[in-house]
């Protein structure tokens, strides 16, 4: 189940308020509405990727060149992108906001999907702060995460969860 269109629109507007210039990503079942909203948002360039490991490296180049990118893909892709996150975002102290579609997230039931079960423990192990966005009420977490990434010079993750499991 994907993030509601109204929430996605609000997330993308929040990104623009933060000065974001590029969304580097791959659509997935949770975040596709955010991806589509980004494609039609004035002032935002979407950089479509073939595999998630590319995203942090492209974003790193954009950051070094003076732009303000965010990364957008699914939690399955977070695992795929591990070496880029480790070797670039963490080792180079990049202030990078990563928005991760939270496949398997269920608010009121035990998690059964390993893509969800291992995600937050992995983020905690790597010392990556993360915030959950499920509805329009949570969208300010985007600005908070963006500010924190810049203050700490570290990646911060926004988990896009729908709770539908």
């Amino acid at each position: 189940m994907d993030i509601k269109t109204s929430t996605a629109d609000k997330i993308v507007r929040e990104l623009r308020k933060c000065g974001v210039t590029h969304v580097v990503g791959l659509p997935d079942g949770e975040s596709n509405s955010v991806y589509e909203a980004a494609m039609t948002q004035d002032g935002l360039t979407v950089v479509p990727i073939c595999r998630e490991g590319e995203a942090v490296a492209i974003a790193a180049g954009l950051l070094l060149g003076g732009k303000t990118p965010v990364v957008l893909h699914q939690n399955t892709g977070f695992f795929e992108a591990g070496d880029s996150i480790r070797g670039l975002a963490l080792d180079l102290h990049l202030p990078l906001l990563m928005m991760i579609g939270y496949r398997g997230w269920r608010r009121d039931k035990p998690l059964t999907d390993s893509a969800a079960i291992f995600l937050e423990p992995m983020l905690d192990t790597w010392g990556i702060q993360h915030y959950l966005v499920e509805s329009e009420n949570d969208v300010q977490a985007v600005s908070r995460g963006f500010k924190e990434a810049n203050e700490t010079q570290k990646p911060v993750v926004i988990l896009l969860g729908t709770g539908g499991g």
Partner: protein
Amino acid sequence: MIDDFEALKVISEHRDQAVVVATMTANFIWPQVSTNPGLDLMFSGAMGKASSIGLGLALARPDKQVIVLDGEGSLLMNLGTLVTIAEMSPRNLVHFVLDNNVYRTSGGQPVPNVGKTSYTGLAEAASYANVYSFDDLLSFKNDIERVLKQAGPTFITLKTIPAKERPPYPLTLTSSIISRFRAALQSA
């Protein structure tokens, strides 16, 4: 076959004010031949991703030519990058691949399907604007000026001599030069 040190010297003589991203074998050699080290991003830390960070730089700074010095083993770890680069199609990106048939930095083990894969063919199929392949130094010297003036993205395979030894220079860690690089790029 081209000596990789000589090939990189030729590129260095023609890079002018271009940003250079150098990885794997090129990371070892490039600091020995570079004419503009401030704009060199020696890339380590995520094998295969040099062309991706080069793409980001090229999109961020369309006023600067960005030259990526990749290896074929490195490219093989991130083949989707060819399609991603073709999609964004930055006119200022030049993507070299040093194809020496081996993983040189780990002692010369052969890459998969060694000698049978055309990296230039893959880039052409992905729809890079220009693709070239050189296997002798003289032709490369004669053509490089023209090649670098093309509107990109441009892909060049350099068939270099296989070697089992790591180059006799230290690897430069990206973390050790990133502040200097960022400052140089901001003022360039």
